[in-house]
């Protein structure tokens, strides 16, 4: 019991409760315009008033995010790998990746709709588009930073490229790849939300647009909290997987 209490005190949850309290008290004490900072209770109330749409939107956006992330992660890892082993591919394709990342997808909503229709796919593609780049860069860096002496050792065992890749390169790169994935999961969420601005009817992105259009500041906060929650959940899940996958202590 005591142990439990101690852990509860030290857990971040308590800090969050504290933070929320400070927020609420400050808003009541200083009464700033809700445009700057609405009360937490007001945000909760507003969330409650639209919870069925919120729940549906959350589910929809989650689906888009996860699908887009999965595609982006796979593609990113694959590209990072190809770039590691082919300098030529890296030099010729990588700059195009950089270019692609500067293209503001939001500006090309019409093209997205023309190519992918008013479908789930369109949102998944925008999520994918934001996801693959950080994964590629981190995979590339992870694979390239493999200890040359260990590579030499594996070579002396007559390891072919495939064996070398799976037994040495992948475990060496894994920690760095996971970092890429952690950065990417948030971007994937952003991608799907923005994707929903292209003629979607359900989703957090739609609610966000509506709130912005009607200047509903409190609703804006509700959607922001929903996005933050989803992002944190997905990130937490990823961090959990990472602890399972990368358990060893680093030794440089």
């Amino acid at each position, binding site marked *: 019991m005591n142990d439990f209490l101690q852990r509860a005190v030290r857990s971040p949850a308590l800090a969050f409760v504290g933070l929320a309290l400070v927020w609420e008290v400050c808003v009541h004490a200083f009464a700033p315009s809700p445009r700057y900072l609405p009360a937490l209770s007001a945000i909760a109330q507003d969330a409650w008033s639209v919870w069925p749409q919120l729940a549906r939107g959350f589910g929809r956006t989650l689906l888009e995010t996860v699908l887009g992330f999965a595609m982006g992660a796979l593609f990113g890892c694959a590209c990072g790998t190809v770039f590691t082993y082919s300098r030529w591919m890296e030099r010729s394709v990588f700059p195009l990746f950089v270019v692609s990342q500067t293209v503001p997808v939001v500006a090309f909503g019409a093209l997205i709709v023309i190519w992918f229709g008013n479908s789930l796919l369109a949102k998944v593609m925008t999520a994918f588009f934001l996801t693959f780049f950080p994964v590629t860069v981190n995979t590339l860096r992870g694979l390239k930073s493999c*200890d040359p*002496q*260990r590579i*030499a*050792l*594996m*070579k*002396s*065992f*007559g*390891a072919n490229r495939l*064996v070398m890749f799976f*037994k*040495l390169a992948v*475990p060496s790169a894994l920690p760095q790849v996971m970092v890429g994935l952690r950065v990417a999961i948030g971007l994937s969420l952003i991608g799907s939300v923005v994707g929903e601005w292209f003629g979607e009817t359900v989703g957090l992105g739609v609610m966000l647009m509506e709130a912005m259009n009607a200047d509903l500041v409190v609703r804006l906060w509700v959607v922001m909290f929903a996005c933050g929650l989803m992002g944190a959940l997905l990130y937490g899940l990823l961090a959990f997987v990472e602890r399972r996958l*990368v*358990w*060893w*202590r*680093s*030794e440089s």
Partner: protein
Amino acid sequence: MKFMPHEVMPPAASDTAPPMLELVNVWKRFGEAQARTVAVSGVNLRIAKGEFVTLVGPSGCGKSTLFNMIAGLLPPDDDGSLLFGGVPQRDGQLLGKVSFMPQRDLLFPWRTVLDNAILALEVEGLPRKEARERARAMLPEFGLAGFANHYPHQLSGGMRQRVALMRTFLFERDLMLLDEPFGALDALTRSRMQHWLLDIWARHWRTVLFITHDIDEAIVLGDRVLVMSARPGTVKSETVIDLPRPRDPSVVLTPEFIRIKQRLLAEIEEESRKTFAQEGTAS
């Protein structure tokens, strides 16, 4: 025991069959211009199948570099050539044919002791289960019983070296290159490992090239002891050790042994002194 000037051939079979390994005028230079280091210079060497050759020399003289070239990990400079069974070897052709133990242990931090040991077997394609069983049986002999599932960061320096040693022994090849394999071991563990090595060498008619800083070890183990000169490292002398085998540890007390040892020591010291005399430039 005879002392032979450099370039004289090793004994026995060497005159008839082509040597297992032959180095002709092998060079290795690192860096450019001012920062140039000549690590290995004009090494000529013949090693017959089944020989046990030990290599001693001052620290930094080029021993590990030579090994790296023989293992196929480092291309020699274009001047000379490297022959294996009489056939010249091009870059990397020797990979997978030589069991090589590098000076640093290079264990993989994400693999347990057991899985580090079977690394080479896995590369060869042996099923993991079978490989593990073979390795597990060896653990007690390497003083690692009970540590099968430990990770490298949980091991002592000597234990790490023994795991690396196991990994090398499990990768069974005709030519073994061992770079200071017993450096971090205490006397008894060291002599145990020596026994184990000699046993494998004798039973499987392996060829062994062995770097050490311990002259006793070099003499007790070797058919021949090569002394490398200070940088730019080359083979300065070869000494055929014709002490009878099996050699008892007490052999170190025989006058013949002591004579060899003193001569070798003097030679190495001469070379070592050169290292310290080199002022100002990396030769």
